[in-house]
Protein backbone atom coordinates (compact mmCIF):
# COMPACT_ATOMS: atom_id res chain seq x y z
CA UNK A 1 0.00 0.00 0.00
CA UNK A 2 2.77 2.43 1.00
CA UNK A 3 4.69 1.36 -2.08
CA UNK A 4 1.71 2.31 -4.26
CA UNK A 5 1.49 5.72 -2.58
CA UNK A 6 5.10 6.30 -3.42
CA UNK A 7 4.98 4.95 -6.96
CA UNK A 8 1.95 6.93 -8.06
CA UNK A 9 3.37 10.43 -7.51
CA UNK A 10 6.72 9.27 -8.87
CA UNK A 11 5.16 8.07 -12.13
CA UNK A 12 3.12 11.26 -12.30
CA UNK A 13 6.26 13.32 -11.85
CA UNK A 14 8.01 11.36 -14.59
CA UNK A 15 5.15 11.88 -16.98
CA UNK A 16 4.70 15.58 -16.30
CA UNK A 17 8.21 16.67 -15.43
CA UNK A 18 10.17 16.85 -18.66
CA UNK A 19 7.28 16.62 -21.07
CA UNK A 20 5.19 19.66 -20.25
CA UNK A 21 5.81 21.14 -23.72
CA UNK A 22 3.69 18.48 -25.36
CA UNK A 23 0.45 20.43 -25.34
CA UNK A 24 -2.16 21.04 -28.01
CA UNK A 25 -1.39 23.70 -30.58
CA UNK A 26 -3.02 27.04 -29.82
CA UNK A 27 -5.58 28.44 -32.23
CA UNK A 28 -4.73 32.13 -31.97
CA UNK A 29 -1.37 33.77 -32.61
CA UNK A 30 -0.29 37.40 -32.32
CA UNK A 31 2.37 38.96 -34.52
CA UNK A 32 5.50 39.65 -32.54
CA UNK A 33 7.34 41.46 -35.26
CA UNK A 34 7.96 41.94 -38.94
CA UNK A 35 11.39 41.12 -40.50
CA UNK A 36 12.97 39.19 -37.69
CA UNK A 37 16.46 40.61 -37.98
CA UNK A 38 15.02 44.08 -37.29
CA UNK A 39 12.20 43.09 -34.91
CA UNK A 40 9.87 45.76 -36.36
CA UNK A 41 6.62 45.64 -34.37
CA UNK A 42 3.40 45.03 -36.23
CA UNK A 43 -0.14 44.33 -35.14
CA UNK A 44 -1.56 41.29 -36.88
CA UNK A 45 -3.31 38.13 -35.70
CA UNK A 46 -3.30 34.61 -37.08
CA UNK A 47 -6.15 32.24 -36.37
CA UNK A 48 -6.13 28.52 -37.06
CA UNK A 49 -9.43 27.02 -38.08
CA UNK A 50 -10.29 23.57 -39.42
CA UNK A 51 -8.49 23.70 -42.76
CA UNK A 52 -7.33 27.27 -43.10
CA UNK A 53 -5.23 29.93 -41.45
CA UNK A 54 -6.73 33.41 -41.25
CA UNK A 55 -4.40 36.36 -40.93
CA UNK A 56 -5.81 39.73 -39.94
CA UNK A 57 -3.24 42.30 -40.96
CA UNK A 58 -2.69 45.65 -39.29
CA UNK A 59 -4.78 47.41 -41.92
CA UNK A 60 -7.65 44.97 -41.18
CA UNK A 61 -7.20 43.08 -44.41
CA UNK A 62 -8.12 39.45 -43.91
CA UNK A 63 -6.21 36.78 -45.72
CA UNK A 64 -7.00 33.07 -45.71
CA UNK A 65 -4.47 30.42 -46.58
CA UNK A 66 -4.66 26.66 -46.46
CA UNK A 67 -3.50 25.01 -43.27
CA UNK A 68 0.03 23.64 -43.65
CA UNK A 69 0.43 19.90 -43.45
CA UNK A 70 4.05 19.80 -42.27
CA UNK A 71 6.15 21.80 -39.85
CA UNK A 72 7.51 23.61 -42.89
CA UNK A 73 5.12 24.03 -45.79
CA UNK A 74 5.02 26.13 -48.93
CA UNK A 75 1.72 27.59 -50.02
CA UNK A 76 1.00 29.41 -53.25
CA UNK A 77 -0.39 32.89 -52.97
CA UNK A 78 -1.50 35.53 -55.45
CA UNK A 79 1.92 37.14 -55.94
CA UNK A 80 4.33 34.36 -55.18
CA UNK A 81 4.78 31.93 -52.35
CA UNK A 82 4.24 31.85 -48.64
CA UNK A 83 6.39 29.54 -46.56
CA UNK A 84 5.10 28.81 -43.11
CA UNK A 85 7.40 27.18 -40.59
CA UNK A 86 6.43 25.97 -37.16
CA UNK A 87 9.20 26.73 -34.72
CA UNK A 88 9.62 25.78 -31.09
CA UNK A 89 7.88 28.89 -29.74
CA UNK A 90 6.52 30.64 -32.80
CA UNK A 91 5.17 30.44 -36.34
CA UNK A 92 7.40 31.93 -38.99
CA UNK A 93 5.75 33.16 -42.16
CA UNK A 94 7.88 34.17 -45.11
CA UNK A 95 6.66 35.61 -48.36
CA UNK A 96 8.74 34.87 -51.42
CA UNK A 97 8.49 36.47 -54.83
CA UNK A 98 8.21 34.55 -58.11
CA UNK A 99 12.01 34.02 -58.11
CA UNK A 100 11.73 32.49 -54.64
CA UNK A 101 13.62 35.39 -53.07
CA UNK A 102 12.45 36.41 -49.61
CA UNK A 103 10.39 39.60 -49.66
CA UNK A 104 9.53 39.79 -45.97
CA UNK A 105 8.76 37.70 -42.94
CA UNK A 106 6.41 37.81 -40.01
CA UNK A 107 6.76 35.96 -36.71
CA UNK A 108 3.63 34.96 -34.82
CA UNK A 109 3.55 33.87 -31.18
CA UNK A 110 0.87 31.75 -29.50
CA UNK A 111 -1.60 33.79 -27.47
CA UNK A 112 -1.43 32.63 -23.86
CA UNK A 113 -4.52 31.07 -22.34
CA UNK A 114 -5.70 33.37 -19.56
CA UNK A 115 -8.72 33.94 -17.39
CA UNK A 116 -11.20 36.08 -19.33
CA UNK A 117 -10.46 39.78 -18.86
CA UNK A 118 -13.16 42.40 -19.21
CA UNK A 119 -11.96 45.30 -21.33
CA UNK A 120 -13.80 48.01 -19.35
CA UNK A 121 -12.67 46.65 -16.01
CA UNK A 122 -9.09 46.46 -17.22
CA UNK A 123 -9.28 50.05 -18.42
CA UNK A 124 -10.58 51.15 -15.01
CA UNK A 125 -7.65 49.44 -13.33
CA UNK A 126 -5.09 51.01 -15.65
CA UNK A 127 -6.58 54.50 -16.01
CA UNK A 128 -4.83 57.19 -13.99
CA UNK A 129 -2.49 54.68 -12.43
CA UNK A 130 1.24 54.09 -12.60
CA UNK A 131 2.82 50.65 -12.90
CA UNK A 132 6.52 49.90 -12.79
CA UNK A 133 8.92 47.07 -13.67
CA UNK A 134 12.65 46.52 -13.70
CA UNK A 135 14.39 45.65 -16.97
CA UNK A 136 17.93 44.45 -17.68
CA UNK A 137 18.37 46.73 -20.67
CA UNK A 138 16.35 48.76 -23.11
CA UNK A 139 15.52 47.39 -26.57
CA UNK A 140 18.14 49.58 -28.21
CA UNK A 141 21.14 49.84 -25.84
CA UNK A 142 23.18 47.12 -24.09
CA UNK A 143 23.61 47.51 -20.32
CA UNK A 144 25.19 45.57 -17.50
CA UNK A 145 25.65 48.06 -14.67
CA UNK A 146 22.63 50.36 -14.49
CA UNK A 147 19.46 49.41 -12.68
CA UNK A 148 16.74 50.37 -15.13
CA UNK A 149 13.11 50.84 -14.20
CA UNK A 150 10.34 51.34 -16.72
CA UNK A 151 6.94 52.68 -15.74
CA UNK A 152 3.61 53.23 -17.47
CA UNK A 153 1.17 55.95 -16.41
CA UNK A 154 -2.09 55.47 -18.28
CA UNK A 155 -4.40 58.24 -19.37
CA UNK A 156 -7.47 57.80 -21.54
CA UNK A 157 -5.80 57.32 -24.92
CA UNK A 158 -2.15 57.80 -24.09
CA UNK A 159 0.47 56.38 -21.82
CA UNK A 160 3.55 58.09 -20.43
CA UNK A 161 6.51 55.72 -20.30
CA UNK A 162 9.31 56.70 -17.94
CA UNK A 163 12.76 55.12 -17.83
CA UNK A 164 14.92 55.72 -14.74
CA UNK A 165 18.55 54.71 -14.68
CA UNK A 166 20.23 54.19 -11.28
CA UNK A 167 23.63 53.04 -10.16
CA UNK A 168 24.69 52.23 -6.60
CA UNK A 169 21.26 53.42 -5.42
CA UNK A 170 21.72 56.87 -6.94
CA UNK A 171 19.61 58.21 -9.77
CA UNK A 172 21.80 58.75 -12.83
CA UNK A 173 19.23 59.88 -15.39
CA UNK A 174 15.57 59.63 -16.32
CA UNK A 175 13.56 60.23 -19.48
CA UNK A 176 9.96 60.03 -20.60
CA UNK A 177 7.89 59.54 -23.73
CA UNK A 178 4.18 59.83 -24.30
CA UNK A 179 2.49 57.64 -26.88
CA UNK A 180 -1.02 56.57 -27.83
CA UNK A 181 -2.27 53.19 -26.73
CA UNK A 182 -5.40 51.09 -27.17
CA UNK A 183 -6.90 48.06 -25.48
CA UNK A 184 -7.78 45.42 -28.06
CA UNK A 185 -10.00 42.43 -27.52
CA UNK A 186 -9.60 39.35 -29.68
CA UNK A 187 -11.30 35.99 -29.05
CA UNK A 188 -11.69 36.79 -25.33
CA UNK A 189 -8.03 37.78 -24.99
CA UNK A 190 -6.89 41.30 -24.22
CA UNK A 191 -3.95 43.14 -25.73
CA UNK A 192 -2.25 46.49 -25.23
CA UNK A 193 -1.40 48.08 -28.54
CA UNK A 194 1.26 50.81 -28.40
CA UNK A 195 1.60 53.40 -31.12
CA UNK A 196 5.34 53.51 -30.56
CA UNK A 197 6.74 53.72 -34.06
CA UNK A 198 6.91 56.03 -37.03
CA UNK A 199 4.43 54.19 -39.22
CA UNK A 200 0.74 53.37 -38.57
CA UNK A 201 1.11 49.62 -39.06
CA UNK A 202 4.25 49.34 -36.92
CA UNK A 203 2.33 49.16 -33.66
CA UNK A 204 3.54 46.96 -30.85
CA UNK A 205 1.02 44.47 -29.49
CA UNK A 206 1.49 42.90 -26.05
CA UNK A 207 -0.88 40.44 -24.45
CA UNK A 208 -2.18 41.13 -20.95
CA UNK A 209 -1.83 37.73 -19.32
CA UNK A 210 -2.68 38.66 -15.74
CA UNK A 211 -4.13 41.63 -13.93
CA UNK A 212 -5.24 42.41 -10.40
CA UNK A 213 -5.54 45.49 -8.21
CA UNK A 214 -1.79 45.67 -7.65
CA UNK A 215 -0.15 44.55 -10.86
CA UNK A 216 -0.48 43.37 -14.42
CA UNK A 217 1.72 41.13 -16.57
CA UNK A 218 2.44 41.73 -20.24
CA UNK A 219 3.78 39.29 -22.79
CA UNK A 220 5.92 40.90 -25.42
CA UNK A 221 7.97 39.32 -28.16
CA UNK A 222 11.59 39.60 -29.24
CA UNK A 223 14.03 37.44 -31.19
CA UNK A 224 11.79 34.35 -31.34
CA UNK A 225 10.97 34.55 -27.64
CA UNK A 226 7.97 35.52 -25.54
CA UNK A 227 9.00 37.68 -22.60
CA UNK A 228 6.70 38.23 -19.63
CA UNK A 229 7.06 41.54 -17.77
CA UNK A 230 5.24 42.09 -14.48
CA UNK A 231 4.35 45.70 -13.70
CA UNK A 232 3.62 46.59 -10.07
CA UNK A 233 1.29 49.45 -9.16
CA UNK A 234 3.22 52.30 -7.66
CA UNK A 235 2.66 55.87 -6.51
CA UNK A 236 2.95 58.36 -9.39
CA UNK A 237 6.35 60.07 -9.32
CA UNK A 238 7.43 63.42 -10.59
CA UNK A 239 7.96 63.03 -14.30
CA UNK A 240 11.41 63.73 -15.73
CA UNK A 241 11.98 66.85 -17.81
CA UNK A 242 13.90 65.02 -20.53
CA UNK A 243 11.85 63.49 -23.31
CA UNK A 244 13.22 60.82 -25.58
CA UNK A 245 11.35 58.73 -28.09
CA UNK A 246 13.04 56.35 -30.51
CA UNK A 247 11.67 56.87 -34.00
CA UNK A 248 10.96 53.16 -34.36
CA UNK A 249 10.39 50.65 -31.61
CA UNK A 250 12.72 48.06 -33.14
CA UNK A 251 16.37 47.10 -33.26
CA UNK A 252 18.39 50.19 -34.16
CA UNK A 253 21.24 50.33 -36.63
CA UNK A 254 24.78 50.26 -35.26
CA UNK A 255 27.06 53.29 -35.17
CA UNK A 256 29.25 51.96 -37.96
CA UNK A 257 26.49 51.35 -40.55
CA UNK A 258 26.80 54.88 -41.80
CA UNK A 259 29.03 57.63 -40.59
CA UNK A 260 27.56 58.57 -37.22
CA UNK A 261 30.83 59.69 -35.65
CA UNK A 262 30.50 62.95 -33.75
CA UNK A 263 30.94 65.80 -36.22
CA UNK A 264 33.76 67.39 -34.20
CA UNK A 265 35.69 64.18 -33.59
CA UNK A 266 36.77 62.21 -30.54
CA UNK A 267 39.57 64.55 -29.47
CA UNK A 268 37.16 67.50 -29.23
CA UNK A 269 34.62 65.32 -27.44
CA UNK A 270 37.09 63.94 -24.93
CA UNK A 271 38.53 67.37 -24.12
CA UNK A 272 35.05 68.85 -23.74
CA UNK A 273 33.77 66.07 -21.49
CA UNK A 274 36.83 65.54 -19.32
CA UNK A 275 37.25 69.25 -18.56
CA UNK A 276 34.78 69.13 -15.67
CA UNK A 277 34.67 65.37 -15.12
CA UNK A 278 34.71 64.24 -11.48
CA UNK A 279 37.72 62.11 -10.56
CA UNK A 280 37.43 58.44 -9.77
CA UNK A 281 39.97 55.81 -8.84
CA UNK A 282 41.46 52.91 -10.77
CA UNK A 283 42.36 52.03 -14.35
CA UNK A 284 40.12 50.67 -17.06
CA UNK A 285 37.17 51.73 -19.16
CA UNK A 286 33.65 53.13 -18.78
CA UNK A 287 31.39 52.48 -21.76
CA UNK A 288 28.26 54.59 -22.02
CA UNK A 289 25.72 53.10 -24.43
CA UNK A 290 22.98 55.24 -25.90
CA UNK A 291 20.57 55.56 -28.78
CA UNK A 292 20.49 58.42 -31.29
CA UNK A 293 17.05 58.85 -32.84
CA UNK A 294 16.18 60.20 -36.28
CA UNK A 295 15.99 63.73 -34.79
CA UNK A 296 19.57 63.43 -33.48
CA UNK A 297 18.39 63.27 -29.86
CA UNK A 298 20.00 60.86 -27.39
CA UNK A 299 18.50 58.58 -24.76
CA UNK A 300 18.05 54.91 -23.71
CA UNK A 301 21.27 54.61 -21.75
CA UNK A 302 23.32 51.63 -20.66
CA UNK A 303 26.67 51.33 -18.87
CA UNK A 304 29.46 48.76 -18.79
CA UNK A 305 32.52 49.27 -16.58
CA UNK A 306 35.70 47.22 -16.71
CA UNK A 307 39.23 47.31 -15.38
CA UNK A 308 42.45 47.31 -17.41
CA UNK A 309 42.27 43.50 -17.59
CA UNK A 310 38.86 43.72 -19.29
CA UNK A 311 37.01 42.37 -16.26
CA UNK A 312 33.95 43.90 -14.52
CA UNK A 313 34.81 46.90 -12.35
CA UNK A 314 33.09 49.82 -10.63
CA UNK A 315 33.84 53.53 -10.76
CA UNK A 316 32.52 56.54 -8.88
CA UNK A 317 28.75 57.08 -9.43
CA UNK A 318 29.38 60.83 -9.71
CA UNK A 319 31.48 60.22 -12.82
CA UNK A 320 28.95 57.83 -14.34
CA UNK A 321 26.15 60.35 -13.78
CA UNK A 322 28.26 63.14 -15.23
CA UNK A 323 29.13 61.13 -18.37
CA UNK A 324 25.52 60.13 -19.07
CA UNK A 325 24.28 63.67 -18.62
CA UNK A 326 27.04 65.15 -20.79
CA UNK A 327 26.24 62.69 -23.58
CA UNK A 328 22.53 63.52 -23.33
CA UNK A 329 23.44 67.16 -24.12
CA UNK A 330 25.49 66.44 -27.26
CA UNK A 331 23.95 67.95 -30.36
CA UNK A 332 26.51 67.79 -33.16
CA UNK A 333 25.68 64.40 -34.57
CA UNK A 334 25.98 64.16 -38.35
CA UNK A 335 22.86 63.78 -40.48
CA UNK A 336 22.02 60.13 -40.01
CA UNK A 337 21.66 58.24 -43.27
CA UNK A 338 18.74 56.09 -42.16
CA UNK A 339 17.15 53.52 -44.42
CA UNK A 340 13.75 51.92 -44.73
CA UNK A 341 14.46 49.40 -42.00
CA UNK A 342 15.98 51.38 -39.18
CA UNK A 343 15.40 54.88 -37.94
CA UNK A 344 17.60 54.99 -34.83
CA UNK A 345 21.25 54.24 -34.10
CA UNK A 346 22.84 52.46 -31.16
CA UNK A 347 26.14 54.15 -30.34
CA UNK A 348 28.59 54.02 -27.46
CA UNK A 349 31.48 56.05 -26.15
CA UNK A 350 34.16 54.22 -24.21
CA UNK A 351 36.21 56.39 -21.86
CA UNK A 352 39.65 55.08 -20.96
CA UNK A 353 40.51 55.74 -17.32
CA UNK A 354 44.09 55.97 -16.09
CA UNK A 355 44.72 56.75 -12.41
CA UNK A 356 41.14 57.89 -12.06
CA UNK A 357 41.24 60.37 -14.97
CA UNK A 358 39.82 60.20 -18.49
CA UNK A 359 42.80 59.84 -20.83
CA UNK A 360 41.34 58.53 -24.07
CA UNK A 361 38.10 57.96 -25.92
CA UNK A 362 37.23 55.02 -28.17
CA UNK A 363 36.22 53.76 -30.69
Amino acid sequence: MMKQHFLFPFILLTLLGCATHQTNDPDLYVSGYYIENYNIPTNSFLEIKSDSLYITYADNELSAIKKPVNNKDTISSKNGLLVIQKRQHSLFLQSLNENKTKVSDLTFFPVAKTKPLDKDKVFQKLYNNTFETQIDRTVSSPNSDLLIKKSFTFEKDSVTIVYTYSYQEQLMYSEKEKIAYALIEKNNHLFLEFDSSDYPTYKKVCQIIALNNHSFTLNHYRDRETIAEKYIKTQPKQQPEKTFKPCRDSRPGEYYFNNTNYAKGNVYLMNKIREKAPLTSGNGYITIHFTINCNKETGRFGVEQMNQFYEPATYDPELIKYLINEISLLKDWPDLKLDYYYQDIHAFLMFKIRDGKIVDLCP
Partner: protein
Amino acid sequence: MSLKSLFILIASVFFLSCKSSKNENPFEHLSSEEREKLATFYHNISITEHHVKFQTGRLHRVYKDSALMAVPDHVEYMQRASYSYKKSGEHIKAMQMLNKAVALDVEKNSTKALEYKAWSMLYFYRDYESTIKDVDLIEKINFPKKYNGCHGEPCLFLKGQAYYQLGEYQNAIETFEYLLKILEEKGLDPKDEFLTNFYLARSYFKSNNLDKSLFYLEEQLEMPYTVKAELNFYAGQIYVLKNEKEKALQHFLKAKELFLKNDKIYEPFIERFDEIFIDDIESEITGLN
Protein backbone atom coordinates in the same frame (compact mmCIF):
# COMPACT_ATOMS: atom_id res chain seq x y z
CA MET B 1 15.05 5.31 5.73
CA SER B 2 11.33 6.05 5.73
CA LEU B 3 9.39 5.85 2.49
CA LYS B 4 8.71 9.57 2.77
CA SER B 5 12.44 10.31 2.88
CA LEU B 6 13.03 7.89 0.04
CA PHE B 7 10.40 9.66 -2.04
CA ILE B 8 11.99 13.07 -1.37
CA LEU B 9 15.38 11.68 -2.33
CA ILE B 10 14.16 10.13 -5.58
CA ALA B 11 12.16 13.23 -6.45
CA SER B 12 15.25 15.39 -5.86
CA VAL B 13 17.41 13.14 -8.04
CA PHE B 14 14.73 13.29 -10.72
CA PHE B 15 14.59 17.10 -10.67
CA LEU B 16 18.35 17.44 -10.62
CA SER B 17 18.74 15.04 -13.53
CA CYS B 18 16.14 17.00 -15.49
CA LYS B 19 18.01 20.21 -14.68
CA SER B 20 21.50 18.94 -15.41
CA SER B 21 20.43 17.44 -18.70
CA LYS B 22 19.72 20.99 -19.85
CA ASN B 23 23.32 21.98 -19.08
CA GLU B 24 24.88 19.08 -20.89
CA ASN B 25 26.22 19.60 -24.36
CA PRO B 26 23.48 18.31 -26.69
CA PHE B 27 26.10 17.38 -29.26
CA GLU B 28 28.14 15.23 -26.91
CA HIS B 29 27.08 11.98 -28.53
CA LEU B 30 28.21 13.07 -32.02
CA SER B 31 31.53 12.16 -33.61
CA SER B 32 34.05 14.94 -34.11
CA GLU B 33 33.37 14.84 -37.85
CA GLU B 34 29.62 15.26 -37.28
CA ARG B 35 30.25 18.08 -34.82
CA GLU B 36 32.49 19.86 -37.31
CA LYS B 37 29.78 19.55 -39.96
CA LEU B 38 27.12 20.88 -37.61
CA ALA B 39 29.32 23.78 -36.52
CA THR B 40 29.91 24.74 -40.16
CA PHE B 41 26.15 24.62 -40.73
CA TYR B 42 25.42 26.95 -37.76
CA HIS B 43 28.32 29.22 -38.61
CA ASN B 44 27.06 29.55 -42.19
CA ILE B 45 23.56 30.51 -41.00
CA SER B 46 25.09 33.15 -38.71
CA ILE B 47 26.90 34.78 -41.61
CA THR B 48 24.14 34.46 -44.22
CA GLU B 49 20.66 34.78 -42.67
CA HIS B 50 21.92 36.91 -39.77
CA HIS B 51 24.91 38.40 -41.54
CA VAL B 52 27.16 41.33 -40.81
CA LYS B 53 24.36 43.90 -40.67
CA PHE B 54 22.73 41.94 -37.86
CA GLN B 55 25.96 40.78 -36.28
CA THR B 56 25.14 42.37 -32.92
CA GLY B 57 21.69 40.78 -32.80
CA ARG B 58 20.63 37.87 -30.64
CA LEU B 59 19.92 35.49 -33.51
CA HIS B 60 23.43 35.88 -34.94
CA ARG B 61 24.77 35.13 -31.46
CA VAL B 62 22.55 32.08 -31.00
CA TYR B 63 23.93 30.49 -34.19
CA LYS B 64 27.49 31.44 -33.27
CA ASP B 65 27.02 29.90 -29.80
CA SER B 66 25.54 26.78 -31.35
CA ALA B 67 28.59 26.39 -33.59
CA LEU B 68 30.82 26.74 -30.55
CA MET B 69 28.72 24.25 -28.63
CA ALA B 70 29.53 21.72 -31.35
CA VAL B 71 33.25 22.60 -31.51
CA PRO B 72 34.08 24.41 -28.23
CA ASP B 73 37.78 24.92 -28.98
CA HIS B 74 37.43 26.24 -32.51
CA VAL B 75 39.70 29.28 -32.56
CA GLU B 76 38.28 30.94 -35.66
CA TYR B 77 34.64 30.57 -34.60
CA MET B 78 35.42 31.85 -31.13
CA GLN B 79 37.33 34.84 -32.49
CA ARG B 80 34.53 35.62 -34.94
CA ALA B 81 31.89 35.22 -32.23
CA SER B 82 33.69 37.93 -30.23
CA TYR B 83 33.15 40.43 -33.09
CA SER B 84 29.46 40.62 -32.26
CA TYR B 85 30.17 41.84 -28.72
CA LYS B 86 33.03 44.12 -29.67
CA LYS B 87 30.98 45.84 -32.34
CA SER B 88 28.14 46.45 -29.91
CA GLY B 89 30.52 47.74 -27.22
CA GLU B 90 29.94 44.79 -24.86
CA HIS B 91 33.62 44.53 -24.24
CA ILE B 92 33.85 42.26 -21.21
CA LYS B 93 32.24 39.40 -23.10
CA ALA B 94 34.15 40.29 -26.30
CA MET B 95 37.49 40.14 -24.51
CA GLN B 96 36.63 36.95 -22.62
CA MET B 97 36.02 35.22 -25.93
CA LEU B 98 38.97 36.78 -27.71
CA ASN B 99 41.41 35.99 -24.88
CA LYS B 100 40.24 32.38 -24.90
CA ALA B 101 40.70 32.19 -28.70
CA VAL B 102 44.21 33.66 -28.37
CA ALA B 103 45.19 31.23 -25.61
CA LEU B 104 44.02 28.22 -27.65
CA ASP B 105 45.73 29.53 -30.77
CA VAL B 106 49.08 30.45 -29.21
CA GLU B 107 49.17 27.03 -27.55
CA LYS B 108 49.33 25.64 -31.08
CA ASN B 109 52.05 28.15 -32.02
CA SER B 110 49.62 29.96 -34.28
CA THR B 111 49.23 33.76 -34.19
CA LYS B 112 46.02 34.37 -36.18
CA ALA B 113 43.90 35.28 -33.13
CA LEU B 114 46.74 37.25 -31.56
CA GLU B 115 47.11 39.28 -34.76
CA TYR B 116 43.46 40.26 -34.51
CA LYS B 117 43.88 41.02 -30.81
CA ALA B 118 46.84 43.34 -31.48
CA TRP B 119 44.72 45.21 -34.02
CA SER B 120 41.79 45.44 -31.57
CA MET B 121 44.02 46.55 -28.70
CA LEU B 122 45.26 49.49 -30.73
CA TYR B 123 42.11 50.73 -32.40
CA PHE B 124 39.24 49.62 -30.17
CA TYR B 125 40.82 49.83 -26.72
CA ARG B 126 43.68 52.25 -27.29
CA ASP B 127 45.68 49.90 -25.12
CA TYR B 128 49.08 50.76 -26.53
CA GLU B 129 51.21 48.70 -24.12
CA SER B 130 49.21 45.56 -24.99
CA THR B 131 49.54 46.28 -28.72
CA ILE B 132 53.33 46.37 -28.45
CA LYS B 133 53.39 43.26 -26.26
CA ASP B 134 51.16 41.34 -28.69
CA VAL B 135 53.16 42.35 -31.78
CA ASP B 136 56.40 41.35 -30.02
CA LEU B 137 54.91 37.93 -29.25
CA ILE B 138 53.73 37.51 -32.86
CA GLU B 139 57.25 38.27 -34.09
CA LYS B 140 58.77 35.89 -31.55
CA ILE B 141 56.47 33.02 -32.52
CA ASN B 142 56.91 33.61 -36.24
CA PHE B 143 60.68 34.25 -36.13
CA PRO B 144 62.61 34.54 -38.50
CA LYS B 145 59.68 35.85 -40.59
CA LYS B 146 60.11 39.63 -40.78
CA TYR B 147 56.75 40.72 -42.13
CA ASN B 148 53.62 39.81 -40.20
CA GLY B 149 50.10 40.94 -41.02
CA CYS B 150 47.65 41.90 -38.28
CA HIS B 151 44.04 41.76 -39.51
CA GLY B 152 44.83 43.43 -42.82
CA GLU B 153 47.56 45.81 -41.66
CA PRO B 154 51.29 45.24 -41.06
CA CYS B 155 51.82 44.38 -37.39
CA LEU B 156 54.77 46.76 -37.28
CA PHE B 157 52.48 49.55 -38.45
CA LEU B 158 50.31 48.91 -35.38
CA LYS B 159 53.37 48.83 -33.12
CA GLY B 160 54.64 52.12 -34.56
CA GLN B 161 51.30 53.79 -33.91
CA ALA B 162 51.27 52.44 -30.36
CA TYR B 163 54.69 54.02 -29.72
CA TYR B 164 53.44 57.24 -31.33
CA GLN B 165 50.43 57.37 -29.02
CA LEU B 166 52.63 56.67 -25.99
CA GLY B 167 54.77 59.68 -26.96
CA GLU B 168 57.78 57.45 -27.70
CA TYR B 169 58.43 59.16 -31.02
CA GLN B 170 61.96 57.85 -31.64
CA ASN B 171 60.72 54.26 -31.21
CA ALA B 172 57.80 55.07 -33.51
CA ILE B 173 60.14 56.47 -36.21
CA GLU B 174 62.45 53.45 -36.00
CA THR B 175 59.51 51.04 -36.21
CA PHE B 176 57.93 52.77 -39.23
CA GLU B 177 61.29 53.05 -41.02
CA TYR B 178 62.06 49.38 -40.35
CA LEU B 179 58.65 48.43 -41.78
CA LEU B 180 59.27 50.52 -44.92
CA LYS B 181 62.68 48.82 -45.31
CA ILE B 182 61.10 45.35 -45.05
CA LEU B 183 58.51 46.32 -47.67
CA GLU B 184 61.26 47.57 -49.97
CA GLU B 185 63.10 44.27 -49.55
CA LYS B 186 59.90 42.53 -50.62
CA GLY B 187 60.01 44.55 -53.85
CA LEU B 188 57.32 47.05 -52.90
CA ASP B 189 57.57 50.83 -53.18
CA PRO B 190 57.63 52.23 -49.60
CA LYS B 191 55.93 55.41 -50.85
CA ASP B 192 52.81 53.35 -51.56
CA GLU B 193 52.31 52.88 -47.81
CA PHE B 194 50.30 56.04 -47.23
CA LEU B 195 49.39 55.58 -43.58
CA THR B 196 52.88 54.45 -42.51
CA ASN B 197 54.39 57.50 -44.20
CA PHE B 198 51.70 59.73 -42.71
CA TYR B 199 52.40 58.60 -39.14
CA LEU B 200 56.13 58.71 -39.82
CA ALA B 201 55.65 62.37 -40.77
CA ARG B 202 53.57 62.93 -37.62
CA SER B 203 56.25 61.27 -35.46
CA TYR B 204 58.92 63.56 -36.91
CA PHE B 205 56.61 66.54 -36.28
CA LYS B 206 56.17 65.56 -32.63
CA SER B 207 59.96 65.17 -32.38
CA ASN B 208 60.28 68.78 -33.61
CA ASN B 209 61.92 67.68 -36.87
CA LEU B 210 59.67 69.86 -39.04
CA ASP B 211 61.68 69.51 -42.26
CA LYS B 212 61.64 65.72 -42.16
CA SER B 213 57.92 65.77 -41.37
CA LEU B 214 57.22 68.14 -44.27
CA PHE B 215 59.33 65.96 -46.58
CA TYR B 216 57.14 62.90 -45.98
CA LEU B 217 53.88 64.89 -46.14
CA GLU B 218 54.83 66.53 -49.44
CA GLU B 219 56.05 63.24 -50.85
CA GLN B 220 52.66 61.72 -50.06
CA LEU B 221 50.86 64.73 -51.57
CA GLU B 222 52.49 63.78 -54.88
CA MET B 223 51.26 60.20 -54.70
CA PRO B 224 48.11 59.37 -56.67
CA TYR B 225 46.14 57.30 -54.15
CA THR B 226 46.66 59.06 -50.86
CA VAL B 227 44.12 60.87 -48.71
CA LYS B 228 44.86 64.53 -49.13
CA ALA B 229 42.91 66.57 -46.54
CA GLU B 230 45.04 65.47 -43.57
CA LEU B 231 48.30 65.81 -45.55
CA ASN B 232 47.47 69.43 -46.42
CA PHE B 233 46.27 70.23 -42.91
CA TYR B 234 49.43 69.02 -41.17
CA ALA B 235 51.66 70.58 -43.85
CA GLY B 236 49.81 73.84 -43.15
CA GLN B 237 50.59 73.54 -39.43
CA ILE B 238 54.30 73.17 -40.22
CA TYR B 239 54.23 76.31 -42.38
CA VAL B 240 52.59 78.18 -39.51
CA LEU B 241 55.49 77.20 -37.27
CA LYS B 242 57.93 78.22 -40.01
CA ASN B 243 56.12 81.58 -40.13
CA GLU B 244 55.18 81.10 -43.80
CA LYS B 245 51.58 82.17 -43.39
CA GLU B 246 50.63 82.38 -47.07
CA LYS B 247 51.74 78.79 -47.72
CA ALA B 248 50.01 77.68 -44.53
CA LEU B 249 46.74 79.33 -45.61
CA GLN B 250 46.90 77.67 -49.04
CA HIS B 251 47.29 74.28 -47.41
CA PHE B 252 44.44 74.88 -44.93
CA LEU B 253 42.11 76.06 -47.71
CA LYS B 254 43.02 73.03 -49.77
CA ALA B 255 42.44 70.81 -46.71
CA LYS B 256 38.98 72.35 -46.30
CA GLU B 257 38.10 71.88 -49.97
CA LEU B 258 39.20 68.24 -49.87
CA PHE B 259 37.52 67.59 -46.53
CA LEU B 260 34.21 68.77 -47.97
CA LYS B 261 34.73 66.35 -50.87
CA ASN B 262 35.30 63.55 -48.31
CA ASP B 263 38.91 63.17 -49.45
CA LYS B 264 39.92 62.51 -45.85
CA ILE B 265 40.83 59.63 -43.59
CA TYR B 266 37.73 57.67 -42.68
CA GLU B 267 37.14 54.30 -41.07
CA PRO B 268 33.60 53.19 -40.22
CA PHE B 269 34.46 51.38 -36.97
CA ILE B 270 37.04 53.64 -35.42
CA GLU B 271 38.46 57.14 -35.55
CA ARG B 272 42.09 57.00 -36.66
CA PHE B 273 44.72 58.94 -34.74
CA ASP B 274 45.12 62.52 -36.03
CA GLU B 275 42.03 62.32 -38.22
CA ILE B 276 40.85 65.89 -38.80
CA PHE B 277 37.42 67.52 -38.63
CA ILE B 278 36.04 70.68 -40.18
CA ASP B 279 36.29 72.64 -36.91
CA ASP B 280 40.02 71.86 -36.71
CA ILE B 281 40.55 73.40 -40.18
CA GLU B 282 38.32 76.42 -39.51
CA SER B 283 40.15 77.09 -36.28
CA GLU B 284 43.56 77.11 -38.04
CA ILE B 285 42.24 79.45 -40.76
CA THR B 286 40.79 81.79 -38.11
CA GLY B 287 44.09 81.65 -36.22
CA LEU B 288 45.95 82.95 -39.28
CA ASN B 289 43.75 86.04 -39.64
